[in-house]
């Protein structure tokens, strides 16, 4: 946990306990340290799964989730609902990955190895890939996370009516894709 407290004082090397004691009061170093760590422990894996589903394994999910936790730490004092904050950060991170990837021009990193899937899981992954990133996010939040449309709208930063439209168009596409196999 020592590293947590010195994060804002980022230097060129790994942080030290001395740095930690000098850190400001915004982060969890002066609050209940165990809170951040317990959130990290309990939500890391579910968020990676959310990221991989949201992107249909087309983005570096671990990197995006780790980024979200770093951002959470740095805003720890002002974030009231860490789980909701992380979900928004991860979904947005997946959506903006395309722009980030665009920076790399032709020299894109290799696609990550994929888990072996069979049956509905394989069919769903392939079907998700026909959706746009925003449509995929809406579908996963609705049918995997079971979020209501209003909450999905909050995550995606749009109106509930837009979510309804996104889901409707997505389901039309998915129906076609899933019925093909």
């Amino acid at each position, binding site marked *: 946990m020592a590293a947590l407290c010195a994060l804002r004082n980022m230097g060129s090397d790994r942080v030290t306990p001395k740095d930690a004691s000098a850190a400001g009061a915004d982060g969890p170093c002066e609050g209940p340290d165990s809170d951040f760590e317990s959130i990290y422990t309990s939500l890391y894996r579910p968020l990676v799964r959310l990221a991989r589903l949201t992107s249909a394994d087309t983005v570096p999910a671990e990197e995006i989730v780790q*980024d979200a936790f*770093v951002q959470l730490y740095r805003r720890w004092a002002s974030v009231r609902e860490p789980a909701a904050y992380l979900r928004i950060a991860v979904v947005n991170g997946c959506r*903006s990955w395309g722009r980030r990837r665009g920076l790399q021009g032709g*020299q894109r990193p290799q*696609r990550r190895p994929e888990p072996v899937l069979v049956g509905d899981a394989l069919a*769903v*992954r392939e079907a998700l890939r026909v959706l746009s990133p925003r449509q995929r996010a809406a579908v996963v939040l609705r*049918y*995997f996370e079971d979020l209501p449309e209003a909450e999905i709208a909050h995550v995606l930063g749009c109106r509930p009516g837009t979510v309804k439209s996104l889901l409707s168009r997505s389901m039309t596409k998915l129906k076609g894709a899933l019925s093909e196999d």
Partner: protein
Amino acid sequence: VRTDTETRLRVGLADYARAMRVERPPLDDLLHPGHVRLHGRPRRRYVSALAVVAVALVGLAGALLLTTLRPTDDADVKVGQQPPATGPQRLILEGWPGEVLPDGSLVELPLGGLDRLGLSGPPQPLPGGRHVLLGVRDVTPEVSLDEDAGFEGDPAFYLVVVDADGNVETEREVDVTDESASLFAATPTEAIVARTPREDGDRPLTPGRIVAHNLETGRERLIAELDIRPSRADVVGDTLVVVQGLPGDLDPNGSCGLEVIDLVGGDRTQHPLPTGCSEVLGVRASSDGQTVAVIYGAVGETPEVRLAIVDLVDSTIRSDELLGHNLICPPTECPGLRPVHYLGAAWDNDATLRVALVDLATNPAWNVEGDPVTKDELLIETRTVE
């Protein structure tokens, strides 16, 4: 009332999530300062009135300095004969910036202050144990979620030459507005860089061009306007090999292309690649420039990593073989499959090729996004070309 599609979707998503293997890194590793920086926004360069005044005050001297530091077209520089490389090629890895030495040991290459995940292309070897890198630098650590975290805006690409002791020998900003830069190869004196239009925005995409960036002066000369969007490239002597087939496009029907450009005469020739190729992972030309090894992926239910040997003299595919499968699956669950991840390739001589892979059966939890490669996980496949 749930429709069949909804039910199938829920079941499929749950099964898909259960199949994922996720390893949580230690918290202290996550919060390493270097790790944090590379997630930030690339530096934006706002031109303020103050900056204009400052530039004016700097005057002619500054302008002259800039012309030497910034990449410039170098139409006056004639293409010269590059001596063919001799001896074994260095086996440098991509993803994790390391090198497999001739004795089989692994070393991590220093990045000269660049972030690993900010690299645009793997390190490229230079004589004397040096190497050159290209990547995004000076990213701003503070990123507001409200600003939609991620790389957008105007990134600062830097080219860095690192000497054999790990010291930075040269560093230079190589940004061109609205373009990405990728390091594809290097001759002893020049970095071969693909400059391609950014993919964001509404601009129609064009393949871009390949330039040779003089490592000493920073001057750039155009090598070729491209007909294809490049994926990987290699240079041997005066032969530039460019391959198309973009990883991540996920198009099972995608086709790959191979083009050879004569840097002296300008001749360009197309050569065949296997029809099953959907993404090119790597390319290495033999030192005599007559044979090219293309490591490629074929997507499908069991995505494959394959090696094609292309004879440039006859313009034929000499061989096409399976190296492994690009998937995560312990051997007990997937008998008959060989889970691997491609790392790099190099010719020991004109007939002997080494291909480096990660053995994902040894460590199914190996994370392509951040884990270093260990000797236990490293597979070296050696092939002899008749």
